[in-house]
């Protein structure tokens, strides 16, 4: 029986990354996954491939190669112009049945989770959600580590009797690989197994989320200065903005601050907000509830400013300041401004 299983599993080879795109632009997490995928492929001594679907995606195929894909499976057709579950599901499943990869990775984004769930069900295989850690053993079993219970616990999940092994991976967790335009790879063009007539869903419009000065995308920022309930009111957030301006960063918020109407929802960090991984995260008047921590604890450096020395935020902080934020933050902003002036003076 064991030999039979081993034979079944060994029919699957290669690591695949699904390249998510909207209007021709790739989601950054897809490139991050090519970086991780490369590592897994090397450990398995197999090929790293990218799956690119859409309309007019030649450029994306080239980019995927530059980020490390050795082969790109591409489906290019008007029916794939906008992401639609049924069209993409049929496309990916057709590729999997033809080429049988051992591992498929997708971003744990709205789109990635929409697609991964249907593909895994259609293929009757296992899917691990929202991973933050991936490694592979010598039998080719993927150790998929993910937070569950809102980040209170971590679980390592295995899918050792089925292939392909599928995982969605949280954005900003895996480091971005370098882009190298000199890299070469093969683009395999596959025909699209669906027609417009078969589609159950039509995308009528895509609205970019703008308006009310909230276009800032905190998930891409290097410096995030977040405020919580300790900020006391909306006006005090201008103090954080001032600090953010000196640092070249953006202002984020805890859910309490968002619920109070002090900041828009798209600035919320945490389980029901965004996951961020800046170079420096400064938490001001935020207690550090687990739902907040899961969204920011992978930041390179966490600075916590809180007057309560027992606040759980200090447990994830690289640097903690126990004090009144209304004194510490202006002092910090002043220091940085002085430093900046001194430096630009030197340069001038």
């Amino acid at each position, binding site marked *: 029986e064991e030999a039979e299983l081993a034979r079944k599993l060994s029919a699957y080879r290669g690591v695949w990354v699904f390249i998510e795109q909207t209007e021709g632009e790739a*989601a950054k997490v897809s490139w991050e996954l090519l970086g991780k995928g490369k590592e897994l492929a090397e450990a398995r001594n197999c090929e790293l491939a990218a799956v690119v679907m859409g309309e007019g995606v030649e450029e994306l195929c080239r980019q995927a190669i530059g980020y490390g894909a050795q082969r790109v499976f591409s489906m290019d057709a008007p029916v794939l112009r*906008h992401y639609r*579950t*049924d069209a993409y599901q049929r496309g990916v499943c057709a590729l999997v049945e033809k080429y049988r990869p051992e591992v498929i990775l997708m971003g744990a*984004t*709205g789109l990635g989770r929409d697609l*991964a*769930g*249907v593909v895994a*069900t*259609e293929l009757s*295989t*296992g*899917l691990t*959600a929202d991973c933050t850690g991936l490694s592979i053993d010598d039998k080719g079993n993927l150790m998929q580590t993910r*937070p*569950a*219970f*809102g980040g*209170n*616990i*971590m*679980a*390592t*999940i295995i*899918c050792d009797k089925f292939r392909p092994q599928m995982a969605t991976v949280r954005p900003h967790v895996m480091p971005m690989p370098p882009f190298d335009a000199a890299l070469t790879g093969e683009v395999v063009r596959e025909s699209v197994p669906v027609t417009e007539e078969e589609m*159950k*869903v039509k995308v*009528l*419009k*895509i*609205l*970019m*989320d703008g308006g009310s000065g909230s276009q800032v995308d905190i*998930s891409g920022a*290097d410096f995030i200065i977040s405020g919580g309930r300790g900020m006391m009111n909306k006006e005090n957030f201008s103090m954080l903005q001032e600090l953010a301006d000196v640092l*070249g960063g953006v202002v984020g918020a805890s859910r309490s601050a968002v619920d109070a109407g002090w900041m828009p929802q798209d600035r919320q960090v945490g389980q029901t907000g965004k996951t961020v991984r800046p170079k*420096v995260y400064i938490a001001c008047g935020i207690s550090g509830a687990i739902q907040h921590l899961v969204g920011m*604890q992978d930041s390179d*450096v966490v600075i916590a400013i809180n*007057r309560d020395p027992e606040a759980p935020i200090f*447990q*994830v*902080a*690289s*640097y*903690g*300041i*126990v*004090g*009144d934020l209304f*004194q*510490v933050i202006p*002092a*910090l902003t*002043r*220091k*940085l401004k002085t*430093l900046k002036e001194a*430096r630009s003076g030197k340069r001038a």
Partner: protein
Amino acid sequence: MYVVACIKQVPDTTQVQIDPVTNTLVRDGIPFIVNPYDSHALEESLCMKDRYGFKAVALSMGPPNAEATLRKALSLGADRAILLSDRAFGGADTLSTSNVLAAAIRKLAEQDEVGLVFCGKQTIDGDTAQVGPGIAVRLGISQLTLVDRIEHLDFLARKIRVRRKLEGRYEIVEAKLPAMITVVRELNQPRYPTVPMRLKAVQSDVDVWDNGVLRLDTNSIGLKGSPTWVSRIFSPERSQGEIVGDGLKDPSGTARDLVERLLARDLLTV
């Protein structure tokens, strides 16, 4: 016409702990709640009932005590509540969970058409967001995830138009019915039970369907039907950092000390 809401009973998240000896989740004494997103799924099914006169059915797979969750649905106005409970369903991952839920929906469809299936965006325990898509595939119906607004329902044309909330963008999408919809919090405001409804709920029956009713292949349900399994559970690591200066007595000196540390690590681009 049936509208189905899939609701899961979940532990109150922040209180889950790991037994240091057995390395398993401590579940005893933890209060259970309806998965918060599922309250919005249920609410939407009740809105459909109010507006169009459909029959609202609440569906949950879980242990016998998940009946409490379904009774809550009845007290809010659901016409029927069905608990899918069988030892053979236990230990399920999302593949086998969606198999059981889809089978129950198919069974319901033998009595009357199922036009819409509402699920939560995700649960707060397993957190996977995979069960809804699993149901849609198995039923072969339209899939609309992360819906924050239902713009139009045209019953005669068998079409629904919704708004989906994605990262940094919205999509307006039209789909054929029947459809499986996963909902986000912004979709609606869940109602509270009225006293007469609560009394009625106490007297109403929660149907219990086991695998004798669903007749699924035992290799496709529960632990056996689950390709994934949890090999290890652990608490997230926390690195202990440094408390800088005395922020209470000397805010300005503390700020200076912090800036020095950031400069030493080459973190400042100012």
